[in-house]
């Protein structure tokens, strides 16, 4: 029966995606966040559990799993238990449309739905319901306030998010995620830098504005600093998940981290070319190699050798050196695809996640009215104007 096979395939792919998210996003993501936060704050992150602290998240998960399962007495038990499931499942469902790379001729995506990025935006808006349900059913006024604040923040920022998605869909001509990457392949460059052919580099301001609007809205959607007032530990006692213990708390966190990685993945697809390789001339890769060598030399010889940043920056410089040497020789040899596309997609996604984590320790937390002002009075008009201007430019000078 063909439908049974399809159902089993769907379940199998769902398990693969969940494993990827649980291992990469949750475990590696939390570990990276703690390490990077530590380095930015001039301290070392977790170091003891496992080599270089790599098993820290495993230890944390085991700790969370063995915690007591508390349901507050007058809480609505059904909704209290269902709320984290809604958040986690909606965040995981986002990953169905994200293409990870290209293996030969076949794109590695669970399902390339024709309305890919619209589906992504729709699943992000289902998360809000889980948050309100969690906040209300905890029977706790701080949780309720936190839930309502978080929900109002998330629905306010859905509009600039959707406008960023609309921009990319308009330039690409399709809502499907694979279609958007293919449009960038056809154009030969990423949407952030160039618009389709007659316009070329004049599209740079539109692309940068659209990607910055999208990334700001994405940071607010996942309740990260500088937009994490609803979860501020110092003000609202962790907000809408104040009453959640153990695995249900972990499900909320899984949903949030999965959503953050999902936003980074969709941003790489829409603005940074997805799984495509940057097509630079061989001499540009040689310049990148030289740059990495200069950075390593500066760190090793000057007084910066005494700071904590030595090891991570040396590691990054070494990786950059290796990468650009491989690319240099590969493009000199005339290969069309030097490194696997999955590796490029993951590298770009992690670079964006690093950017999001870096923003966390750079800006102070915005107050609720400043946050809502930013969304309604700054990002919404900018997004609309960008859409209008890009549409005008595309119609008059483009296809």
């Amino acid at each position, binding site marked *: *029966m063909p*439908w049974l096979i399809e159902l089993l395939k769907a379940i199998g792919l769902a398990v693969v995606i969940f494993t990827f998210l649980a291992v990469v996003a949750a475990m590696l993501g939390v570990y990276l966040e703690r390490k990077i936060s530590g380095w930015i704050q001039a301290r070392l992150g977790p170091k003891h559990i496992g080599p270089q602290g790599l098993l820290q998240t495993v230890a944390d998960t085991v700790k969370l799993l063995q915690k007591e399962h508390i349901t507050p007495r007058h809480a609505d038990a059904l909704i209290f238990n269902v709320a984290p499931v809604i958040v986690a499942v909606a965040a995981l469902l986002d990953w169905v449309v994200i293409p990870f790379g290209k293996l030969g001729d076949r794109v590695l995506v669970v399902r390339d739905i024709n309305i890919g990025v619209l589906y992504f935006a729709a699943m992000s*808006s289902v998360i809000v*319901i889980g948050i*309100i349900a969690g906040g209300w059913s905890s029977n706790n006024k701080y949780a309720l306030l936190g839930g309502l604040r978080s929900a109002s923040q998330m629905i306010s920022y859905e509009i600039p998010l959707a406008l960023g998605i609309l921009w990319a869909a308009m330039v690409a001509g399709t809502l499907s995620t694979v279609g958007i990457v293919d449009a960038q392949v056809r154009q030969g460059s990423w949407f952030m830098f160039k618009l389709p052919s007659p316009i070329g580099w004049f599209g740079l301001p539109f692309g940068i504005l659209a990607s910055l609007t999208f990334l700001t809205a994405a940071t607010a959607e996942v309740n990260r600093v500088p937009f994490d007032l609803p979860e501020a530990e110092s003000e609202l006692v962790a907000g809408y998940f104040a009453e959640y213990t153990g695995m249900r708390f972990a499900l909320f966190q899984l949903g949030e981290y999965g959503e953050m990685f999902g936003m980074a993945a969709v941003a790489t697809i829409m603005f940074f070319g997805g799984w495509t390789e940057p097509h630079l001339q061989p001499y540009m890769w040689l310049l990148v190699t030289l740059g990495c060598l200069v950075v390593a030399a500066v760190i090793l010889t000057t007084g910066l050798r005494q700071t904590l940043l030595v090891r991570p920056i040396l590691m990054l410089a070494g990786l950059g050196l290796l990468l650009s040497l491989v690319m240099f020789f590969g493009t000199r040899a005339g290969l069309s695809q030097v490194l696997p596309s999955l590796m490029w997609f993951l590298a770009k996604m992690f670079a964006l996640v690093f950017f999001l984590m870096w923003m966390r320790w750079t800006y102070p937390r915005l107050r609720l009215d400043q946050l809502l002002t930013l969304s309604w009075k700054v990002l919404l008009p900018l997004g609309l104007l960008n859409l209008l201007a890009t549409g005008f430019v595309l119609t008059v000078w483009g296809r």
Partner: protein
Amino acid sequence: MGELAAFMILSLVTLIPAVVVVTSSNIVRAALSLVPTFLGVTGLYVMLQAEFVAGIQVLIYAGAITVLILFVIMLTEGGTGVRTRQLNDQVPLGAMAAVWLAFVLIVIFTRTGWPTAAGVLPAYNVVAVGNAFLSDYVLIFEVTSVVLLVSLVGAIVIARRED
């Protein structure tokens, strides 16, 4: 056979939470049951090959209108009103009217010979709907935009606090 199973499951996911919406005495539970109803309707749209409408249904109904209803429940007496009587005196009459209307509609639907046409919807119906909005139905499109603006301004003015 797979299509029949999918249709049955989606209809149950649509109708059973709808019963909870109209009969539950806990109004927050009723509002949260709207979500599986809307998601079931989304599934029915996907089965009818209208995926753009399905995407918009999740984005607007499950994502925005449900949140709006929950907000208004929290801001009015709903958070504490779970103990007041939720059904009024018209329950027997209302039930009779609803059952009678359902009976009449189902009899009409099953007895009419619908002129079904064999054909396939356009494959990528976002493009088809977009073209239709800007060519055949452009007046509806423009008037809907004006209605959206008017209702946005109106809702803000009505709900604003008077100080």
